[in-house]
């Protein structure tokens, strides 16, 4: 049997196959169901993809991306965030840094300078590191409380509608509290930026935004004043107006920096119990 014969025999054998002259109704039903199913699943997938795309675009548009979005008027934006801060309620812990002019250039040098003095080792370390911690219970305008452990010591400031108290130590013992008008060394946290801006009188610039305490922030700076006392300030706010970073520096003067490390919503009423005098 040669190739031609073999092909011929194969064709003969194939003649035994049934004829497909008409499609069985059951087959057509199956095929139609399959087509419908395919179209339906394609449409569902398309709708899902489009829906997710739209949701994604909306999420991107509504997401607070302060640092990435251009600010047309930095001063207006800063004022708006400052105003929002004045109506926010939160408890925020800040890491603070304070340096005075003429201080030792390094913590090591500082420790050597105060060694043998009256301060204990822990206080000496805090003084020389220049860093401290501040807890702000913020519920303006009626009440706020600031507990600070800084190189200057431990103190608390309590502001209520009845007035403002400055207390030494952290336990608000009545004997150690005195009435005060001052906002303390970290007044930048509780004063609106407009005060500093009016004092410096220079245009506001947009600074690179960054993530502080896990929150994306938008930052602004200002620098100006007389040549021998350039005043520089910087603020970083979250999109909803929480103040996360403040820097205040006068050339040749004191530098204070507060940077949030922990943010929680709301305040506790216990923070605002006024000690009896």
């Amino acid at each position, binding site marked *: *049997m040669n190739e031609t014969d073999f092909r011929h025999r194969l064709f003969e*054998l194939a003649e035994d196959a049934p004829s497909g002259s008409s499609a069985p109704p059951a087959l057509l039903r199956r095929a139609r169901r399959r087509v419908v199913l395919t*179209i339906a699943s394609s449409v569902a997938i398309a709708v899902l993809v489009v829906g997710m795309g739209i949701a994604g675009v909306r999420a991107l548009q509504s997401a607070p991306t302060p640092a990435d979005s251009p600010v047309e008027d930095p001063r207006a934006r800063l004022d708006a965030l400052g105003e929002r801060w004045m109506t926010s309620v939160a408890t925020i812990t800040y890491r603070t840094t304070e340096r005075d002019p003429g201080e030792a250039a390094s913590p090591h040098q500082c420790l050597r300078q105060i060694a043998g003095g009256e301060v204990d080792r822990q206080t000496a370390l805090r003084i020389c590191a220049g860093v401290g911690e501040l807890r702000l219970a913020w519920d303006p305008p009626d009440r706020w409380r600031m507990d600070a452990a800084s190189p200057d010591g431990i103190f608390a400031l309590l502001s209520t509608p009845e007035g403002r108290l400055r207390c030494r130590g952290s336990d608000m013992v009545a004997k150690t509290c005195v009435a005060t008008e001052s906002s303390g060394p970290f007044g930048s946290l509780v004063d609106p930026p407009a005060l500093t801006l009016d004092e410096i009188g220079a245009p506001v610039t947009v600074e690179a935004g960054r993530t502080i305490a896990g929150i994306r922030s938008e930052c602004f700076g200002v620098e100006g004043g007389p040549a021998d006392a350039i005043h520089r300030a910087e603020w970083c706010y979250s999109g909803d107006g929480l103040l996360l970073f403040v820097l205040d520096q006068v050339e040749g003067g004191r530098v204070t920096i507060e940077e949030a490390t922990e943010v929680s919503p709301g305040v506790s009423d216990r923070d605002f119990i006024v000690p009896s005098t």
Partner: protein
Amino acid sequence: MGADVETIRIEGSLLADLYVRHADEALRLSYLLTGDVALAEDLVQDAFVRVAGRLLHLRDPGGFHAYLRKTIVNLARSHYRRRAVERRFLERQTEAPPADPDDLSDRERLRGALMALPIGQRTAIVLRYFVDLSEAQTADLMGRHPGAVKSLVSRGMGTLRTTVGVDV
């Protein structure tokens, strides 16, 4: 063909037309791969349903026939893989009496010899000598290397030479 498929809707009449146009050739191919009328019909129907479901996604809608052919080959291969396990089990249970070659017609002998080939060899031979595909086309359809197809055909034809006297 392309124009036909582009106008396909899910109405039964169009699907029926498509079936009538391609069923005969598909059934013959399926029958040569399976040697069983009922099985051949089942495979063609399954293949038709599958390809009909993918009509909207076919990269080349005009190639319905080629897709159908490829689906039949794949379904036959899957079927025989499944059957191989069953067959080995059944062979252990009962030894079928060998058929007397003198009692069979030439056509039956060829069918028996063809069906005795492994599915790969049988598919390669049917595609080459019945569907008349080239070695490259056969390789593409089977998802194998052309060299592998050549080897399958050669071994299959070698077996047929001894069983039914094919001299190709």
